């Protein structure tokens, strides 16, 4: 009040203000596929009530969301859908991988389940557990808020700066020790149409994701 400001006027760093706004109104996009999704619903329901932390506005349209919560296992047929939805979300966006299945495949080390979504989309926060307790999810949201508050800027420079890869992009999509049968992706039974002018390994191409 030394400056003689009238009441109800604060002086703050605008960056901080932007962060504060972003962090406390996360709109999650519940990408709930399996059992973890039910726990996600429990977090939204009355006993755990995620509304206390400003993240209760579950929007099912990716265009309105800034936090994707991947709850449940992602399988071969679902992964292109997941990637497409991730691409549809506007920046700034974050991703929480909830549960052992989304983080690493969990108990499902089988032919159909993707062993960790971080092989294919960027993930900011991992929650272990099968399923994680609701408290863990709430803690994850708090941690993410903490992270957002520390790093954000008003103009969103940090999102433009994110040009270097933050995901395990450079490691082979499937470590060879995980492939039991002989052969690699070129002999795998699921093939993408061949495209010679694209020098990327066939396993890294984006054939399904172009909007038509």
């Amino acid at each position, binding site marked *: 009040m030394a400056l003689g400001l009238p009441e109800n006027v604060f002086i703050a760093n605008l960056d901080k203000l932007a962060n504060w706004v972003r962090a406390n109104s996360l709109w999650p996009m519940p990408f709930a596929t399996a059992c973890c999704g039910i726990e996600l619903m429990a977090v939204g329901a009355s006993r755990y009530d995620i509304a206390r932390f400003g993240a209760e506005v579950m929007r099912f349209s990716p265009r309105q969301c800034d936090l994707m919560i991947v709850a449940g296992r992602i*399988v*071969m*047929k679902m*992964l*292109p859908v997941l*990637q497409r939805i*991730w*691409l549809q979300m506007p920046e700034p*966006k974050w991703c929480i991988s909830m549960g052992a299945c989304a983080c690493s495949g969990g108990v499902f*080390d*089988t*032919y*159909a*389940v*993707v*062993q960790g979504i971080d*092989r*294919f*989309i*960027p993930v900011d926060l991992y929650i272990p557990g099968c399923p994680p307790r609701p408290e863990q999810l709430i803690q994850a949201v708090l941690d993410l808020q903490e992270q957002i508050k520390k790093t954000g800027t008003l103009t969103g420079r940090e999102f433009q700066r*994110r*040009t*270097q*890869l*933050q*995901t395990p*992009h450079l490691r082979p*999509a*499937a470590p060879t020790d*995980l*492939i*039991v*049968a002989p*052969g*690699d*992706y070129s*002999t*795998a*039974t*699921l*093939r*993408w149409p061949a495209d010679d002018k694209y020098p990327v390994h*066939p*396993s*890294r*191409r*984006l*054939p399904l*994701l172009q909007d038509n």
Partner: protein
Amino acid sequence: MIAYHHILETLRRITGCSHLELRTFRDNVRLEVPREYLYPVLQHLKEGFGFDMLIDITAVDYLYYPDARRRFGVIYCLLNTSTGQRLVVKTYLDEPDLHLPSVFPLWKAADWLEREVYDMFGIVFDGHPDLRRILLPESFADYPLRKDYPLRGRGERHNFPTLSRAES
């Protein structure tokens, strides 16, 4: 309740097939049918003996089963909803000729169940209205529940493009 041996006798008489066999284990009664007679037998079970509900169709790959002589067994679990009687009908198939008649005309429930067996074992049901893969992607080229397919697959699960922060 109709006695099972009576069902067996009647079926033998009507279809003229002498290779029908009845086996009992605990409370399960299993009728083993050569596959040429599968459709007539099932039809009689439905129309003559009131087995009006098809509970399940599934298959087993006997590749590594001790002392097994046939490769695939296909199993039909039937139920008579008015008496509560159950019957398991089983037939065997061998490798090159994996064809069976579809029972979709008898029970509509067979639609998806047969598609699943086709998806998982590659057994073709002739006369099925829409025999496509049901659980796996269309581009998948293997039959995962066969015993010679490895549990962890052949790398299909990781055959996808990677998205990074910069790209998204």
